[in-house]
């Protein structure tokens, strides 16, 4: 069978299961007695095993199988959940992830699983050794007096006694269950007197490929044969009528005992099955290739562009009939946009999920005691943002754990709770999603930042404390005295900022020395279609995302003042620095002395952008600039207006 067609699905579901495993095992460490969790973990490992086996990835199947053995011990209370075992299980997950990602990347690198397999085996062995499966030789049937009695009675009542010999096919798996199926089938047409090996031995798989059952029935030989053969994986069945039952030898166990044991076994199964019941909810969904969604989004974008063009034409020619229809079309396209936007949204949970494990590992490595809190993981963001935001968050959380939270002794000395808190929060704020990382650690040392700034030749005179703190986002800026594996190499914060800016977002830092720091990331909910203000600078039309705009005011050129060699305006008692768009974008400003100031807010910063005139508000579709124009940092992209004009969209975050 060609399996390649299933590969994508296999990979996706495997990652999902690995993620669940990571979370649940983390949870198990906290609540070692939680049976539901153990069962959930077992189930995920089991699913993984099944899928890997089907795909022919025998290494993965083997490893998950070993994991199951360990988990089974938890389930049966044969093994205590210790952090040692948890660490080995985590190592397993890492190995599995590596194997799966190798498959994804088409890499032929073979991950060595021997060591981890041995570790797992040692856990299993530590408590009790593997059950030894004794294969009993099949002796001849031995009926005791009691059995013989039953047989005799059966004859008297006109029933027949058959000896059914069954042989399973060679590669039959789950032989016991297979034999049990035969047993059950025969039981449905009569009464079973005896089996060889005994039913308990059959249940414990203490037999090879053959077994025999003596059954009392009123059915014909052929009927019984047919019924057994209707079970799959049966190689041969032989049904013999027993006539001479006298010269049989006694055996210790009688049938009563067997049924008692059988009952007990059934009880056991029931109990373990009860635990199986699971509480996790699954919701109905369809998996769609992200490429198709991108295409969908793009098409809706095109539709919006052409709708605006049509509107313009209808306006120019004053076509009332057309106008009405267009309004209708307008409403539908808006709905369509909303819909496709929502389809592309995913809960940020997907990204947050991996952090508890990361924080745990880091805290252990650094010998710190940290409580990690996640809130608002259900907040939804565009798929593209979700895919990209993980990396910067990893950086920030690592920083918080490594530099933010102090070592336990230091915290005690300062009179703080020895357990540090790192909190990751997401929520929606207007058309922005906000992600916050708060820690109650040491906070930023302003003097240290100033010193560092001086050594880099940055003048901090006249800068607000807040601006100084934001210097940490500059390239090569690290105030950490020592470079560790985890963070502090000074590459990072600038990369974090650049990444977030490329997603149309902003990052700010708020910190109080000694008390902790907070990083606040604001991201647009969606990337492709935005409301924008169209402005004119000289003869050029530009678009500014409405998301950044606080207000627009009218000023005379005389009202623009100079302080510290920088242009500012006074507005309602506050001083707002201004940026002349014409200067920054190398355009020619008009001579008009009446100007407009578009006041934009980027995080905590407020800046006025000076433009010549306003053109109106419009929904625009952001089109990327393509490779050749990628170096233009001042623009986020371009759009096509109703009249077919291509207009550049200003990257506000890059300008202020």
């Amino acid at each position, binding site marked *: 069978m060609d399996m390649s067609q299933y590969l994508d699905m296999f990979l996706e579901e495997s990652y999902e299961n690995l993620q669940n495993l990571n979370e649940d095992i983390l949870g198990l460490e906290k609540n070692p007695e939680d049976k539901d969790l153990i069962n959930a973990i077992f189930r995920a490992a089991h*699913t993984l095993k099944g899928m890997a086996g089907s795909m022919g990835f025998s290494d993965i199947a083997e490893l998950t199988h070993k994991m199951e053995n360990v988990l089974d011990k938890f389930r049966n209370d044969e093994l205590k959940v210790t952090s040692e075992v948890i660490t080995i299980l985590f190592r397993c997950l890492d190995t599995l992830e590596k194997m799966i990602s190798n498959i994804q990347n088409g890499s032929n690198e073979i991950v060595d699983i021997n060591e981890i397999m041995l570790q797992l085996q040692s856990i299993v062995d530590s408590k009790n050794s593997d059950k030894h499966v004794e294969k009993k030789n099949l002796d001849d049937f031995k009926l005791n007096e009691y059995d013989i009695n039953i047989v005799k009675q059966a004859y008297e009542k006109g029933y027949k006694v058959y000896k059914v010999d069954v042989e399973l096919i060679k590669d039959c798996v789950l032989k016991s269950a297979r034999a049990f199926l035969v047993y059950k089938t025969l039981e449905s047409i009569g009464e079973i007197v005896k089996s060889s090996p005994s039913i308990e031995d059959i249940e414990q798989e203490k037999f090879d490929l053959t077994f025999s059952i003596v059954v009392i029935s009123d059915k014909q030989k052929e009927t019984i044969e047919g019924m057994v053969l209707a079970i799959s994986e049966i190689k041969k069945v032989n049904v013999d009528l027993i006539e001479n039952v006298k010269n049989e030898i006694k055996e210790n166990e009688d049938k009563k005992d067997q049924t008692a044991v059988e009952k007990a076994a059934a009880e056991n199964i029931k109990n373990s099955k009860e635990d199986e019941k699971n509480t996790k909810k699954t919701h109905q969904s369809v998996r769609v290739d992200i490429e198709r969604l991108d295409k969908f989004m793009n098409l809706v974008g095109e539709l919006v562009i052409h709708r605006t063009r049509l509107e313009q034409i209808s306006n120019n020619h004053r076509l009332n009939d057309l106008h009405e229809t267009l309004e209708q079309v307008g409403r539908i396209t808006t709905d369509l946009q909303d819909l496709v936007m929502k389809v592309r949204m995913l809960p940020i949970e997907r990204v947050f999920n991996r952090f508890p494990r990361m924080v745990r590992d880091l805290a252990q490595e650094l010998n710190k005691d940290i409580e990690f809190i996640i809130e608002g993981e259900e907040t939804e963001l565009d798929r593209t943002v979700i895919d990209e935001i993980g990396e910067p968050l990893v950086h920030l959380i690592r920083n918080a754990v490594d530099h933010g939270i102090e070592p336990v002794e230091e915290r005690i000395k300062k009179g703080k709770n020895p357990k540090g808190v790192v909190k990751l929060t997401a929520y929606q704020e207007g058309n922005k999603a906000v992600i916050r990382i708060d820690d109650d650690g040491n906070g930023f040392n302003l003097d240290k930042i100033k010193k560092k700034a001086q050594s880099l030749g940055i003048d901090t005179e006249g800068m607000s404390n807040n601006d100084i703190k934001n210097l940490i986002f500059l390239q090569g800026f690290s105030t950490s005295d020592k470079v560790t594996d985890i963070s502090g190499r000074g590459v990072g914060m600038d990369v974090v900022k650049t990444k977030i800016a490329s997603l149309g977002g902003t990052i700010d830092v708020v910190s109080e020395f000694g008390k902790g720091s907070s990083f606040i990331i604001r991201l647009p909910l969606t990337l492709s279609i935005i409301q924008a203000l169209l402005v004119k600078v000289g003869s050029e039309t530009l678009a500014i995302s409405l998301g950044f705009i606080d207000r627009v005011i009218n000023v005379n050129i005389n009202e623009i003042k100079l302080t510290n060699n920088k242009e500012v305006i006074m507005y309602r008692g506050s001083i707002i620095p201004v940026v002349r768009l014409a200067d920054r974008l190398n355009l020619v400003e008009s001579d008009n002395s009446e100007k407009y100031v578009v006041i934009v807010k980027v995080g905590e910063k407020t800046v006025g952008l000076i433009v010549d005139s306003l053109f109106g508000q419009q929904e625009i579709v952001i089109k990327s600039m393509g490779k050749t124009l990628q170096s233009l940092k001042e623009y986020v992209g371009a759009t096509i207006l109703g009249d077919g004009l291509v207009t550049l969209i200003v990257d506000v975050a890059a300008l202020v």
Partner: protein
Amino acid sequence: MPKVLIVDDAAFMRMMLKDILVKNGYEIAGEAPNGLKAVELYKSENPDVVTMDITMPEMDGIQAVKEIKAIDPNARIIMCSAMGQQAMVMEAIKSGAKDFIVKPFQPERVLEAIKKVLG
């Protein structure tokens, strides 16, 4: 054309089974990701055969077998099990499952089991 209801929590597994069955002339009555949905679909679609995974969220395969058997004592259900689930397969058989197949699936085994339960 006999109709088969496929029950498994992994979409991947459902897809595989579906491919095997459709290629061999079976009709798919429906797919369910858990026992609860399986029981519901059994009622509405009345399939000829059900392939039933054991470990599933919401309601596991064994409970689903019991409930389906309660609705239709003649229901033909084939358990889909993995190695190491012997005890659960037996429980399912006790509850009325007609046969079982073991993952990783071999198409010929799947087809054999289905053909046999259909008689």
